């Protein structure tokens, strides 16, 4: 490993202009750039629902990768595009990146509604699509893609985590046997919400739970008060909610005004992972809400990560805070960084080294990626299901956690093996959503 003179001096002297706490690795990349499309929703409702945080995370990954020498001395250059929270714009922008910009690789895509058509188009054109965030299982399952990859989780895993969490804690904490547990599933009605809700419904019923309400709504619906009325009528012990924003704030505001009380509300990613935003609106009332998503890197104990990943984690946290002044690193920032970094480091770099950076070399590199659990900043490993598998292109080592919020900070409460403590369950009396005795 080569060490730059400037980095060595900076690290030794602890000078403020040292690149954060990052030990110097290599000369910054300076060769011919490798251009990569990066497609996120930088405007529209999805931007603040997490897409922008993903984009910032990915940007930090590119910066860091280039500072560390890039791929064989060649920097990875971002060709940014904004899908404006609209599927047709996402398709047009992806087409522009491929046909006008002449790119072979596009990464990003926040919404599953965008990922569905994009995946088909990239496969047909034999271009590589690296989906950083869109999680609907249906994007990948049974489609036998060879050019579409998703290093992050898929929607079935949200259902699995939610149900397993309840199976482990329902009786212990709420004194309700799982087969008596009344569960309500509500969701935005795009592929993301529908996918997560379908998996949750199937697994909850298989576990013997009573699904008392399963209902979707449009994320742009101006009113959800009658949904609140129906939830009150069905008296669920637990509400599992998949949504973006502002539908989540609308629901919670109307739930509070409508006298909805329950034992627990479990969010399932997207808007519920934007705890800074929710806290701005609801303050301490967000305390003890649970949320299912991949782990934000700051939630993991550093010693469970490899030393190099620990270093990445530190850089991400420092740079994200410097860029955004966020109080707590959003999960989406970790996901954006992690997905971009694993592509750059584990696919692009070997593909440039062994095959000049061609698509064929990248596809070969994806089949060779084999990071163990703890090998990425989100704690999961990385290995793709092979071609021919019904989930070909999906990371088989991805994983979700259940986190719980306290004063706008998240802590992992499931899986128990990596939990920082047991969950507070049910809502304590201080919560406006807690059942009245």
């Amino acid at each position, binding site marked *: 490993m080569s060490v730059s003179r400037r980095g060595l001096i900076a690290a030794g002297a602890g000078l403020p202009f040292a690149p954060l706490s990052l030990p110097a690795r290599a000369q910054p990349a300076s060769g011919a750039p490798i251009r990569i499309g990066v497609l996120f929703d930088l405007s529209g*409702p999805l931007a*603040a629902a997490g897409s922008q945080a993903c984009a910032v995370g990915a940007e930090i990954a590119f910066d860091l990768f280039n500072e560390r020498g890039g791929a064989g001395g060649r920097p990875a250059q971002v060709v940014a595009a904004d899908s404006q929270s609209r599927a047709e714009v996402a398709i047009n922008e992806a087409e522009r990146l491929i046909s006008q910009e002449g790119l072979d690789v596009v990464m990003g895509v926040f919404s599953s509604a965008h990922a569905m058509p994009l995946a088909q188009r990239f496969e047909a054109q034999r271009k590589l699509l690296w989906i950083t965030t869109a999680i609907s299982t249906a994007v990948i399952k049974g489609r036998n893609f060879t050019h579409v990859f998703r290093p992050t989780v898929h929607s079935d895993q949200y259902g699995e985590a939610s149900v397993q969490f309840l199976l482990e804690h329902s009786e212990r904490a709420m004194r309700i046997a799982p087969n008596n547990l009344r569960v309500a599933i509500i969701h935005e009605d795009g592929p993301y919400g529908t996918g997560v809700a379908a998996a949750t419904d199937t697994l909850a019923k298989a576990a013997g739970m009573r699904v008392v309400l399963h209902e*979707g709504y*449009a994320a*742009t619906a101006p009113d959800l008060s*009658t*949904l609140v009325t129906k939830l*009150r009528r069905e008296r669920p012990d637990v509400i599992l909610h998949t949504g973006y924003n502002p539908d989540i704030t609308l629901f919670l505001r109307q739930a509070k005004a409508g006298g909805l009380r329950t034992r627990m509300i479990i969010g399932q990613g997207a808007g519920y992972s934007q705890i800074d935003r929710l806290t701005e*609106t609801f303050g301490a009332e967000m305390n003890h809400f649970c949320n299912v998503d991949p782990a934000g890197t700051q939630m993991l104990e550093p010693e469970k990560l490899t030393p190099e990943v620990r270093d990445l984690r530190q850089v991400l946290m420092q740079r994200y805070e410097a860029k955004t002044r966020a109080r707590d690193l959003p999960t989406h920032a970790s996901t954006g960084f992690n997905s971009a970094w694993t592509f750059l480091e584990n696919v692009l770099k070997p593909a440039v080294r062994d095959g000049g950076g061609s698509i064929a070399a990248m596809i070969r590199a994806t089949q060779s990626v084999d990071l163990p659990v703890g090998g990425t900043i989100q704690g999961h490993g990385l290995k793709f299901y092979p071609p021919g598998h019904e989930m070909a292109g999906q990371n088989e080592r991805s994983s979700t956690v259940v986190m719980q919020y306290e004063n706008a900070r998240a802590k992992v409460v499931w899986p128990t093996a990596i939990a920082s403590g047991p969950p507070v369950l049910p809502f304590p009396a201080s919560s406006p959503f807690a059942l009245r005795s």
Partner: protein
Amino acid sequence: MDPFLLEALVNGILLGGVFALPVLGCNLVFGVVDVVWLCYAELVMVGMYAVWFLHTQQAWPLYLAFAAALPLVGLLGVLLHLIVVKPLLGAPPINQLLATGGVLFVLQGGAMLVFGTDFRSLGVELPPMEWHDVFVSGTKLAAFCAALAGAAALWAFLKFTYIGIAIRAIARDREVMPLMGVDPRRVYVVASAVGGALAGLAACLLVVQLDVHPFIGLSFGPITFMICVMGGLGNMLGGFLAAFLMGLIVSTGSFWWNTEMSYVIAFAFFIAVIFGRPRGLFAR
């Protein structure tokens, strides 16, 4: 009566109150100027940002922020008329639609540049009211009462003031009134100001119920136009009644079926109305 059904009905009426003000404003402008402001929901968005900014960033008392939003959006309505609509008064309707549609994107983009894509919350709410297990949101009820008061004030303005009578006269017959000494250009400006001020009032009522962001207009803009057409474009009483009808359809549809289906029913009803009464449900 099932308390939950009663609650759903109350929700529907309150929702109708939310829809009613933008519908009145849209219909007033269309009835008088004969131009559809496609960007009407975005005027509401600007008003919501104004209230949010003045109250949370400038520490103005809420009532002062509300009081400022009305003339501000009213002024915006006047500017919209003078800069965009007036030069196109003789142009084909599609040109007018495209122009006000363009303003929609300008306002959305402008809000995004100034305020970013974050959701902004006013952080104000009234406690709910409970009566025999029926919950009513205090905030929504207050907004509903303010909407009714606004509609009554508009009615009094149109009924008892000289300019209000002139507005109604122009809406009744655009060709004849100039022959009787009414200056339609002045009436257009006043109608645009009043239409804008109604958007400002709607903004005050919505900002306490919804987070504001540059694309908030998507939540209620399309349904506002649907209600306007359903009640009869330019027909203010028709639009007002249609707003409550739509609120009840959405609410009871959601109660008996589900939230998604309620909008399917609402749109199916709208299509049926357009086939059966193309000039609107309450057209005379």
